[in-house]
């Protein structure tokens, strides 16, 4: 870690975690913009109604489970249970990938029934919102990959530094998970 981080006296929050939270605030604003634009546009009429693919329910369940497994892995790390820690990381990673695949399947399903990106702003919004969210998931998966590389290449030991790094991944992952839950509920409730 950079030396300059150590110059603060006695404050509890880690600056990097704090920075991550601020970044989450920005991301919330971005999706806030998408969803409010969605509402405004929907109110203006000429809005194609279509059923959301059921696959979204599965992907929601999957991403929720992945949050739990990552939390389990984190707790295991803190309790120095190496195996559970590594396993949890791997499973979360795989579940993350599954989520992406399910989102993609949902898209092709929509595409199959003729709801492509151009038909109507209602579908354009759906594709754009889910795609931008998927990009954030990809970011999370990249972070998970770094965590996995650390887990499997470095000798296992517990340190504050490693716990902090893990925390960054964990918080971000919970965040993109909850973000999806919000988006899914939003899309459902505005049908």
């Amino acid at each position: 870690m950079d030396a300059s981080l150590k110059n603060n006296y006695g404050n509890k929050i880690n600056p990097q975690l704090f920075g991550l939270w601020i970044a989450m605030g920005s991301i919330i604003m971005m999706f806030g913009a998408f969803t409010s634009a969605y509402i405004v546009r929907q109110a203006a009429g000429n809005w194609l109604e279509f059923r959301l693919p059921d696959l979204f329910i599965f992907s929601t369940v999957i991403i929720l489970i992945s949050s739990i497994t990552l939390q389990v892995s984190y707790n295991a790390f803190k309790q120095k249970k190496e195996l559970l820690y590594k396993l949890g990381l791997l499973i979360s990673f795989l579940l993350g990938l599954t989520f992406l695949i399910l989102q993609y399947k949902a898209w092709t399903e929509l595409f199959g029934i003729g709801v492509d990106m151009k038909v109507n702003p209602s579908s354009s919004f759906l594709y754009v919102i889910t795609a931008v969210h998927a990009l954030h998931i990809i970011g999370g998966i990249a972070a998970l990959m770094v965590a996995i590389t650390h887990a499997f290449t470095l000798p296992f030991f517990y340190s504050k530094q490693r716990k902090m790094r893990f925390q960054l991944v964990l918080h971000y992952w919970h965040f993109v998970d909850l973000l999806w839950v919000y988006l899914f509920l939003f899309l459902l409730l505005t049908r």
Partner: protein
Amino acid sequence: MANDVLTYNDDTLIKEQGFEDHFHDHHDGDKYQSNFVTHYIFSMDHKIIARQFLITGMFWALIGAAMSIIFRMQLGFPEESLTWIKPLLGKWITVNAETGVGTLMPEFYYALVTMHGTIIVFFVLTAGLSGTFSNLLIPLQLGARDMASPFLNMLSYWFFFLASVIMFYSLFLSTGPFSGGWTAYPPLSALPQASTGSGTGMTLWLMSLTFFVVSVLLGGINYITTVLNLRTKGMSLWRMPLTIWAFFVTAILGLLSFPVLVSGFFMLICDRSLGTSFFLSEIFIEGAALPNVGGSPILYQHLFWFLGHPEVYIIILPAMGIVSEVLSVHARKPIFGYKAMVFSILAIGFLSFIVWAHHMFMSGVNPFISNFFVVFTLIIAVPSAVKVFNWITTLYGGNIRLNTPMLYAIGFVSMFISGGLTGIFLGNSAIDIQMHDTYFVVAHFHIVMGVAAFFGMFAGIYHWFPKMFGKFMNETLGKIHFWITMIGAYAVFWPMHYIGMAGVPRRYYSFNNFNSFDDFQLLNQFITVAAIIVFAAQVLFVINFFYSIWWGKKMKDKNPWKANTLEWTTPINTGHGNWEGKLPVVHRWAYDYGKDGKDYIPQHIPLTEEEKAAEGSH
């Protein structure tokens, strides 16, 4: 004045009373400074990054200003030949074969206006102003070794650089850069075939600004984290200088508003390349109907101005912070109403999010809804007036040093008053029916934002130049620069109010078809001449700047202005980590000027027994 000899022995003070953070025990902090490339180019030191932002900003300021001179030539002297500028602009000047008269092509006129706006608003007054001074002052004035994440800080600059390169490249496209106005409203921005600049020019504009937003976000995360987490011992929030408060709120505004712009950009990109219709509906181009239906260009305006209005405060708040500091230091008086200043910064920051539709009174938004925006818009005048009142009261009865930074700070106050008043005209939706998209708006925002923010930036540069480069800028040149700019700027923008009230629309290439506007030709010529003179004065500034870096008067004293803030306790050649030994510990606010008969008492001077007693008594 007897007080002028007052100096403090910082070195012993910090040694005895400072806070030991063991920064210099390990040398990992210094290792990335070891060679030329890591020191000056890919530097992670906030002071170097500040200078990088400043110099890049100056580069853009010159380009942006030069563009305005070219289109002012067109507006002031439409008949005059521009053949002499053909070597620079090439095919954008068409020369009449018979008469030899060179004319600026309308397409390029629009490109120039658009690029001028984009460059000045984003690259100069956002990156160049907030980027420079937030980077320089946040760690120095808070007593921090560097930013929370020096690495992200470096990335922030390099994303700005990347954005700059892309935008600069777009200037040389054969179809020209984007030409649909700095606000990039669809359909001009959404349809590649809409105008010459709407194709590749707009694609590059979008790419550039997206990278720019990344830069702002990385910077902002750092500024906020540093302010909240890395303050030295004793530096409570209520002891922070107003500069820091301003940068802090600016960063929050940026983090909350720029992402909204990005979502607008994503939708625009989809409209451009993927055939969606977020912002497009029922458009005919060359007689053929486009397939897009159901979109709304107003939606883009909402997304844009939700950023756009906070953005104008992102520009002005840092200038306000700088001016508060400079006024107080050079008036040798505490800033009047410190807490009121902080609360007005916060109020302005909050209100700036709920007034955006005042840019859309004439876009067809519901007049009933407009009323809410009128009310909130006019309420912004209250915290703005509080600030103006406090600046003037700070000056009142002060021991004023009329040096260049101070002149610019006072000039800022003047400009902010003039421009703020016209804002109140525009904020009334009924008056805006006449004023919207006329030169009145141009006058308003150039005075209140353009000129005022530049003045804040100049005040900051002249004031902190010694801290940045260890030299002083030349005072005589500085004063000449100030007076020409001050008088010249009013000469440029004051007449525009009249032109605008008469209904002359902005963004017109030529008024040949409107006989009623012929009366303003002379005024337009006057404006153009004034603009050229002001531009020349800025060249003087640039010369002064670079001359002083190498040959300026050397800074001999650590604290030449006898200021209270912590940056002046660092060594003249401030190295990595800012303080050589321990960190200073803060005992008081930043504005103890003229207290108890002492000219100034810096923040790291412990309280005296009397002061302690006074503090305890209330």
